[in-house]
């Protein structure tokens, strides 16, 4: 075996090194240093994130084509890194709180392991590797969701997550075994060829439906989304933000890779229409549920379901612009959603309040937090000139580039839903700025790590849309990545 193949796995090696360093710190350094663990690992991960931007962007494959890297894949991993870094930064305060102190190391280590799994999902071109990645990215999350050991909700959420995840994996595997049945191989390339030949067989349809359902679970597409709200609400906020941005983003990328690389030959024959139905359902039902929520975390859970529908527009576009727009969307979704979660977390850490009615009058007492939250809501709602507008614009135009009437209808439905979503995003803004409150959240000063995280996110919300070179770069990376 040629061991130099490992050198193509820059990101994987990098995250493993960070993991090992954190693990060694956690295990072997004396107790008096342990209070610095969270900050140290955040700094380590930050250094790795910055360095990873300088890794070479090449098309390369390793292990007889099981593992592939290309400019857009590397960019996707960089985007995930950015999200992960902000989540780590925002979790420091919570991680250092008294009741978490004892499990400080585990939290970070588990997170890093799931990130490793996500890398594999994006890079895999063989379903064995893909499933390993998927499970590595899923199972530790169950432990993370249950992290608040002494809280009942956290347990309930973890059980729900674990049970549905296992069920979904089973369905997914069943689908894969069908695929193996007619293709006789688990390499994406071989499957693509076999799919072309198997067109019209019932087996192909059921297999694809199960595969889509399996990935749809991770992205929380309707009707595979029912776990989302309960888990988001019960899990610690750091884990929720991780689930809602990094995990979901990675799954969206993986969906794009699997559907285009392994099943690209039956795009218009099969899965275009599956996705079509799922996107409409996801955006609409996510929105309808979001309207009635009063708990902020649950509210953002449904908002993130609806956002997942928009993200999938990049997949259904089925072209190089699609993946560029999708990556761009995820990047902007990362900063916007983490702004919202950053505010929620800061308020939760300081006052334990997560209800929307508690946010009434927030502007009077904590104007900066209210302002950051407002920007996040504007960006999520897609109001120009904030970043969310540009991401929506590009992802809609990538879907329209496909050119069929059906796609115009789909984008029209998505646009109408954008208007509905504005209603509930603005409800939050209204609560903070207009609604009166006799007993508002008192003025407090959040921890510096939370502020730093918010500053990064707000800067992203304000600037990413205007700095056009980011999208241009992603577009170029996508077009030289030999995806189509």
């Amino acid at each position: 075996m040629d061991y130099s193949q490992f050198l193509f796995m820059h990101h994987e090696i990098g995250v493993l090194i960070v993991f090992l360093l954190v693990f060694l710190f956690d295990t072997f350094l004396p107790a008096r240093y342990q209070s610095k663990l969270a900050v140290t690992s955040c700094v380590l991960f930050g250094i790795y994130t910055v360095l990873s931007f300088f890794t070479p962007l090449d098309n390369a494959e390793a292990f007889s084509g099981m593992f592939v890297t290309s400019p857009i894949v590397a960019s996707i991993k960089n985007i995930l890194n950015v999200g992960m870094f902000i989540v780590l930064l925002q979790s420091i305060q919570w991680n250092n709180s008294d009741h978490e102190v004892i499990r400080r190391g585990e939290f970070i280590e588990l997170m890093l392991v799931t990130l490793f799994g996500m890398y594999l999902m994006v890079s895999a071109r063989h379903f064995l590797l893909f499933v390993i990645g998927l499970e590595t990215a899923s199972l530790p999350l169950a432990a993370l969701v249950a992290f608040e050991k002494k809280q009942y909700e956290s347990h309930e959420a973890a059980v729900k997550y674990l049970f549905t995840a296992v069920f979904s994996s089973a369905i997914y595997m069943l689908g894969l075994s069908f695929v193996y049945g007619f293709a006789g191989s688990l390499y994406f390339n071989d499957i693509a060829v076999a799919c072309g030949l198997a067109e019209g067989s019932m087996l192909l349809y059921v297999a694809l439906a199960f595969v889509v359902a399996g990935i749809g679970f991770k992205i929380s597409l309707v009707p595979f989304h029912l776990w989302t709200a309960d888990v988001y609400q019960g899990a610690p906020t750091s884990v929720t933000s991780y689930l809602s941005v990094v995990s979901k983003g990675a799954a969206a990328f993986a969906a794009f890779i699997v559907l285009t690389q392994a099943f690209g030959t039956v795009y218009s024959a099969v899965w275009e229409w599956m996705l079509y139905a799922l996107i409409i359902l996801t955006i609409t039902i996510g929105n309808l549920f979001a309207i009635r929520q009063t708990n902020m975390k649950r509210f953002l859970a449904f908002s993130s379901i609806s956002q997942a529908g928009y993200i999938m527009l990049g997949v259904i576009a089925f072209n190089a612009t699609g993946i560029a727009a999708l990556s761009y969307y995820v990047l902007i979704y990362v900063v916007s959603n983490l702004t919202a979660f950053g505010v929620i977390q800061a308020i939760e850490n300081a006052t334990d309040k997560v209800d929307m009615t508690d946010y009434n009058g927030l502007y009077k007492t904590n104007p900066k937090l209210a302002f950051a939250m407002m920007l996040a809501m504007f960006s999520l709602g897609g109001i120009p000139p904030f970043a969310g507008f540009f991401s929506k614009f590009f992802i809609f135009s990538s879907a329209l580039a496909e050119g069929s009437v059906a796609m115009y209808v789909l984008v029209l439905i998505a646009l109408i839903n954008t208007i509905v979503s504005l209603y509930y995003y603005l409800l939050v803004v209204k609560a903070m700025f207009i609604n009166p409150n006799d007993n508002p959240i008192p003025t407090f000063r959040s921890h510096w790590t939370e502020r730093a995280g918010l500053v990064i996110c707000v800067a992203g919300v304000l600037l990413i849309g205007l700095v056009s070179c980011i999208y241009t770069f992603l577009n170029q990376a996508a077009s030289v990545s030999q995806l189509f």
Partner: protein
Amino acid sequence: MDLSLSIITIFLPLLTFFVLGLLGMKMPKKTAGLIGTASMLVTTIVAYGVALNYFFNPDFMVGGVREAQLVFNETWLTMGENLKVSMGILVDPISAMMLIVISTISLMVHLYSLGYMHGEKGFQRYYAFLSLFTFSMLGLVVATNIFQMFIFFEMVGVSSYLLIGFYYQKHSAIAASKKAFIVTRFADLGFLIGIMLLAYYCDTFDFQTLMSNPGAIVGSSAGVTFLGCSAASWAMALIFIGGAGKSAMFPLHIWLPDAMEGPTPVSALIHAATMVVAGVFLVARMFPVYLATPEVLELITATGAVTALYAAIVACVQTDIKRVLAFSTISQIAFMFTALGVARPELHEGVGYMASMFHLFTHAMFKGLLFLCAGAIIHMVHSNEMDQMGNLRKYMPITHITFLIACLAIAGIPPFAGFFSKDEILVAAYENSTLWGVWMSVVAGLTAFYMFRLYYRIFWWSKPDYSHHTPHDCEWVMTLPLILLAVVSCLAGFIPFGHFVTWNGENYDIHLNWTVAGTSIAIALVGILVATVLYRKENSVPDRMADSVKGLYKAAYRRFYMDELYQFVTHKIIFGIICKSIAWFDHVIVDGTMNMLAHMTNNASYAIRKLQSGSIQFYVWVYFIGALLLGVVTFMLLI
């Protein structure tokens, strides 16, 4: 100084805006003012360095032509195969000249405002807005493409809006700022449509690409005609309308007199020297394309000539000193437009273009000076009305002398700056046709008359009672800019402008045409003489003259009822008839549909709430049925 340093002139004011805008309220007023002025000083030094390097470095002269230099040009938005919006810096003769004009006047105004705005509420905000304006104006003149120019055009409009409405507790100031913004914005709509037309037919926004072969561009769109003119002509005419709005050309001039509600230094900076010439600059920038559409140049000439005469007549009867200056500005800018309109390469090496830019330069200096003097006077007398003034030459000697120099300059008396530039404009007008030559000479005579009427009413005329508060010259921060600008107004005429700014970059010497020059001096002297006779000492002759032509006087005083006409059209016709019916449609049909949709959405949201039951068995059941249905239904539908 290296041309690439010009980036500093753009970003330093922007940085200052952010610093003062975000942190201004936390620092003492004085610090904010000093930061603003210091940063403007650096900007000015760099701007001079860049401009002088460009004008005097022989490297930029290739084959006797001063070549435009593209210093930066980064693609910002990609709209199609060839259609790209860039952001960059283009240094060529006119933009280098504008760098000097803007930075000079802006620095003077920054300095002057330290005294004038002393103790005002919102002092820091004022300096932040000044920086924002300077940034936008500099970004406008160095734009490399018409889209960048449009963006900065709008930003200039916004900062002007903010500064006119600086005293936001005064109703008249709010109304004036809104009026300025809406009128110029309305004109910019024309500009935007023009840009889109041009981009559609030429497939580029870039100035240099457009300039390189304007004939072919016009030729390519000549097939498409609308109302007898080619698409290119329409595009260029619409772009001119945008410029005419910003430059307050008739009939879009109505906002400028009202804009005098802003602080007087702002009027000096924005409404005399820089922003209002943006339209002239726009036409000059695209001049080679305008040459290919001569009918639009005719339109520009006619607009300029009509505006010049109209504004000059109105200026003769106004009593608010800032309004006199405002109408005089409109009239002088109209001179510049006329000069551009009559310029043709075959006529005297395109002297009109050079004359227009020359006049822009000198006018910025002496008109800036006039406004700053007016500011000093208003600062002392606490009124804008002529009747409250008089005999001020005894009390404010420095202001008096500098004001007189500026008046002589604008009246066109040698050797002051205005003589040389105005003379070139008249030469260009006579070269084109005798009609425009005579017309503009008459306006020049009127200019001399109304300026000296103003001068005598302020500094001579009666002796009002100043006993409660004796006026005197202001502190040095306010008088220093007056003196500096007065020196420039004396000397600027001797700049051999033909060596620096010409329509195609080739140099030539300016020769005074003594027939034209002699006539114009004579006319100016007559104007001054009439003003001297009428207004040197308080007397009743002017009033009796006004009474004898009461109707005309009143019409001119009310600016020929242009504002009333606008009022009628907007309120009675647009708001009253058109908007009411649209409002009904909006309330009943649009809102009704939306309310119904909202109602339905809400009901749907309520109806499906059971789906999220919390029971995990149900979740898994839905998941499984969903996956199965997905496969089966697509199979049934697609096979």
